[in-house]
């Protein structure tokens, strides 16, 4: 399978998003997005709603409603040429309609981020040994690692979530653990989702890392062994530090995937961004506004991740190693 190729595709893909992140407008949007989130979370989680009530938006709807109706009237009076004004009016209408839901969605964004970050970080811990086993392992470890990867890449994430939640005793076990579901520690469904994302993402991450390890020249390990490092130490101190840098572009891609696929956790009752949106929509029937809004929030998350990974890549860049994004 074209893993090498998919890494390249990943790289170009992310470079695309990076192209957008070069634009000051995008940077500004992402900065605004995070300011809002952080203030919102601080108010809701830490200050217990001290600044503003938990369910009240920071932004008033009235001005937008007013703008929308004024512009709507204007568009109507302009007749057929009024359609651009009509669009702007529609945009304000959209803003006015979505603002009341922002506080609840911000809570969903928090769960989405937590889910993604934990999933990818824990997945990474599994992915590294998996990929090393694929590249340097013996027949047995290699086939175990391959079997794992094929299994998780060959079945839908949704099916994995379902099996783990409804068809295994996982929830029972996690539920019995101390502290789960108390205070700010989420209940078992969230942790089952984390486990699913961890297992699934590990399979994908290991593929990216594997092809990156393969692109470290063989001579590097030979040279490491020649100064007396054992094979394991040579891999640890020489091959991995290089391979992981090569893996960053593909890995960033996986991060973006995970942000989006975290929405599937709603199927097992995790109250992340999609679930929140869906819940509000099924009460209010404002599907279009809410899901456009959710789409924009996801997009902001994805752009943030691209920016972050670009920064990480710059930070760990070493002259002559891997692809520097610029």
């Amino acid at each position, binding site marked *: 399978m074209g893993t090498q190729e998919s890494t390249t595709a990943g790289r170009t893909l992310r470079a695309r998003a990076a192209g957008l992140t070069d634009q000051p407008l995008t940077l500004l949007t992402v900065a605004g997005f995070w300011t809002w989130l952080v203030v919102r979370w601080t108010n809701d989680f830490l200050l217990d709603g001290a600044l503003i009530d938990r369910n009240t938006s920071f932004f008033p709807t009235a001005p937008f409603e007013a703008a929308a109706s004024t512009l709507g009237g204007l568009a109507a009076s302009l007749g057929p040429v009024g359609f651009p004004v009509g669009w702007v009016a529609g945009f304000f209408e959209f803003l006015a309609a979505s603002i009341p839901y922002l506080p609840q969605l911000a809570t969903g964004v928090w769960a989405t981020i937590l889910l993604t970050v934990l999933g990818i970080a824990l997945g990474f811990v599994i992915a590294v040994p998996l990929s090393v086993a694929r590249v340097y392992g013996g027949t047995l470890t290699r086939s175990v690692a391959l079997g794992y990867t094929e299994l998780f890449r060959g079945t839908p994430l949704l099916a994995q979530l379902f099996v783990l939640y409804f068809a295994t005793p996982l929830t029972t076990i996690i539920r019995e653990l101390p502290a789960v579901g108390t205070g700010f520690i989420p209940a078992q469904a969230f942790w089952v989702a984390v486990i699913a994302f961890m297992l699934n993402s590990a399979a994908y991450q290991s593929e990216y890392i594997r092809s990156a390890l393969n692109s470290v*020249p063989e*001579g*590097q390990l*030979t*040279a*490491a*062994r*020649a*100064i*007396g*490092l*054992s094979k394991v*130490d040579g891999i640890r*101190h*020489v091959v991995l*530090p*290089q391979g992981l*840098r090569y893996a960053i572009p593909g890995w960033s891609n996986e991060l973006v995937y995970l942000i989006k696929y975290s929405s599937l956790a709603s199927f097992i009752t995790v109250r992340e961004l999609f679930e929140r949106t869906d819940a509000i929509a099924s009460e209010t029937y404002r599907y279009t506004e809410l899901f456009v809004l959710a789409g924009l929030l996801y997009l902001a998350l994805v752009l943030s991740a691209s920016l972050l990974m670009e920064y990480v890549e710059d930070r760990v860049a*070493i*002259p*002559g*190693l891997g692809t520097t994004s610029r």
Partner: protein
Amino acid sequence: MSDPLLALDDVYKSYGEEQVLSGVSFEMDAGDVDVVIGPSGSGKSTMLRCVNRLTEIDSGDIYLDGDCVTDADTDVNELRKQVGMVFQDFNLFAHLTALGNVTLGLRKVRGMDKATAQEQGYEHLEQVGLSDQADSYPAELSGGQKQRVGIARALAMDPKLLLFDEPTSALDPELVGEVVDVMRDLAAEGITMLVVSHEMGFARSAASDIIFLDDGRIVEHGPPEQLFQNPQAARTGEFLSRLETAHEEE
């Protein structure tokens, strides 16, 4: 006299069907500089790699300082601490600075603390005239500088023996000189070196012995004067004459 520092005794090695080394035997004493020459594919690299067991031999024995190092129970990592190696295409650790390349072995193999390792690392970079490039990454160095870091890295482990596999053949002609100069200095300091190289200038002026390998066998082995002026085997003369014309043109 004491034991030779390195002795190969009837070493055989094949890859599948292909016999690469066929009964190679020779000895070298501490302080010797032996230069191995021979046509492409004659087994020079293989012979070198057998000495520090990057390649395992099929039969025969290799002794380092009197100890048989080809026993199954030899600790290869221990052996490799005593036998440094310099590669044709440098193989510098691409993610580490020059200093990092030199100190990695000191820290992770010799277990030195960072400060001591860096101090020693600097000394070795000094030895190859590169202390001012300590913080440069491999990609920022010229070929000659890379190879000098490669030499410093090998020296840092304080080996009994240094192996060089065509250390200058990946270099642009104008950069060969700086590396050869460093090797000449090392020879003068009495470091034992086994060098695969066709740098005839170096061989003439620094080699104790020249070993001519052809098709996995040592065809001729003797001091440079003898080999160059008065080769015993017809094959040696032929090879040398081709070497001369090729290199004169540079």
